[in-house]
């Protein structure tokens, strides 16, 4: 034992830093790690560009031939955006943190528990916006016009980013509930019904039967309609409101699941 006194409160360096500071710290680390794991980002960058090129190349003449004046490229650009942003998250990194004990290290800090998850979502938002930019640039390069101008394009990106973040709650919920990389990797299955059982390839009025019924309840239908309105129609308040509502509903469900799973994991230790 020693006679030297232990660090007293007056010398203490640690202090609660506040929610925004905590949020920024978590987001900064997540963003710093993204370029160090390119394999986690490259598919999200390539897949939407690939689908956009293939869909436009194979269906443009058919679609525009059937409906003169119809801009199929503008119709497809939001689909590529949805492909780019849906399911992109730091959930795999979170599972690694849980398995390696880094998450325990974070839980032993005075940081806000909510910031531990929300900070990752802030990083996700930044990433999905970055992933949208090459898709949008490709669209502009092949002649897609934005009916609402630069402000509409900004809103287009923000809606896409908001959708991307709203969806991240699902993989985070799985990551926090299971702590299993395999389970998180399987969460991409959720992407398929959202992305394909909707108006990805045909306008809503052209859908028939069961697909039409499902598309009516698929929030992506309204997201696509909102995004398309910005490109093809001009400022359409009703479409934009429905898109915002669809994002809010999905976000409310997925965030509830994710933050419930966070609370459960914190409680279980």
């Amino acid at each position, binding site marked *: *034992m*020693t*006679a*030297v*006194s*232990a*660090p007293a409160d007056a*010398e*203490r*360096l*640690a*202090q*609660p*830093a*506040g929610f925004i*500071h*905590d949020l920024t*710290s978590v987001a*900064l*680390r997540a963003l*710093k*790690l993204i370029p*160090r*794991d390119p394999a986690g980002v490259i598919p999200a960058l390539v897949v939407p560009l690939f689908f956009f090129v293939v869909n436009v190349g194979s269906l443009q003449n058919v679609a525009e031939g059937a409906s003169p004046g119809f801009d199929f490229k503008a119709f497809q650009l939001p689909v590529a955006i949805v492909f780019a942003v849906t399911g992109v998250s730091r959930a795999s990194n979170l599972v690694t*943190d849980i398995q*390696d*004990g*880094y998450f*325990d*290290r*974070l*839980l*032993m*800090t*005075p*940081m806000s528990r909510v910031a531990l998850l929300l900070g990752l979502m802030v990083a996700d938002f930044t990433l999905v916006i970055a992933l949208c930019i090459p898709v949008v640039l490709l669209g502009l390069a092949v002649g897609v016009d934005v009916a609402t101008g630069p402000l509409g394009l900004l809103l287009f990106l923000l809606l896409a980013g908001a959708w991307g973040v709203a969806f991240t709650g699902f993989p985070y919920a799985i990551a926090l509930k299971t702590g299993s990389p395999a389970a998180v990797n399987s969460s991409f299955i959720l992407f398929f019904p959202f992305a394909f059982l909707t108006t990805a390839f045909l306008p809503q009025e052209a859908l028939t039967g069961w697909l039409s019924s499902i598309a009516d309840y698929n929030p992506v239908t309204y997201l696509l309609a909102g995004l398309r309105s910005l490109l093809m129609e001009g400022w359409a308040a009703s479409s934009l409101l429905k898109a915002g509502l669809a994002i809010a509903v999905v976000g409310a469900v997925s965030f509830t699941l994710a933050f419930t799973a966070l609370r459960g994991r914190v*409680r*279980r*230790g």
Partner: protein
Amino acid sequence: MTDAAIETTALRRSFGDLEAVAGVDLSVARGEIYGFLGPNGAGKSTMVRILCTLITPTSGSAIVAGHDVVTDPTGVRLRIGAALQGTAIDPKLTGRETLLLQGRYYGMSRDAIAARMAEVLTLVDIGDAIDRRVGTYSGGMGRRLDLATSLMHRPEVLFLDEPTTGLDPVSRTRVWEEVRRLNTELGMTIFLTTQYLEEADELADRVGIINEGRIVAEGPPDELKRGIGNDVIVVRVTSHDGAETARAAVAALPGVATVEVRGDSLVVSALDGAATVSPVAVALNGCGVGVVDLMLRTPTLDDVFLELTGAHIQGDDQ
């Protein structure tokens, strides 16, 4: 508020039917190195996780650095550091980024982080590797960075959960030196769990021996060992059958308290080891058992554990 760095009262934690911590009363003084010794599954890590606010107790109370782990976990978190089992550092970050982030997590200013980083790096020698990604570090280096990370905010109480498990002897000795230095130079209270007897013996001012969630003995290591009283003669023979034969030959000798066969070894407990070792050697020679080696030693903490529980602490070095 208590003067102790750690104080628990009737602390319990159950997982379903399993009571991992079964009513622990503990008091660790400020500036003390307290060794928490026990076999795997004894409840050591559960205790640490409660004291570090990672899990809540089922009942009882725990005060760490003057703050209750249940009612004021943030107060505890601001004052503790911990290097838990394994190496809880991100392999994709560099050592410097790891320390920088840790400082941010504790709300430290940029200047404070820079100053503190320089300090912890003199305490925990990582050298030029500090700018390399942690994934390239050796096990010992990773463990030292983990320790440095835990020290960034200058905690009052440091928890080390099996800090040298899996390390080679050289790395283990370096970690011990660093732990000692933290205690003597900074006066930091250190709560150390280990399954290595030598580690507890080497570092701890006091040792608490835990078994099945209960503390079965507590005190300075020398005092605990003296409490056993007997010296130990360990005889390694050529076979297990030989050991059984030797037991029969030795058990009735004057001065022999107990005889136990452990694999191909005979462990003879004697009140006066020096006086008993010759009769033991003669008896072994007389019964025709081949002796590989014979050693007279004072009791270890494992002997203390054996005396109290009838079992051994199953460390790698046992």
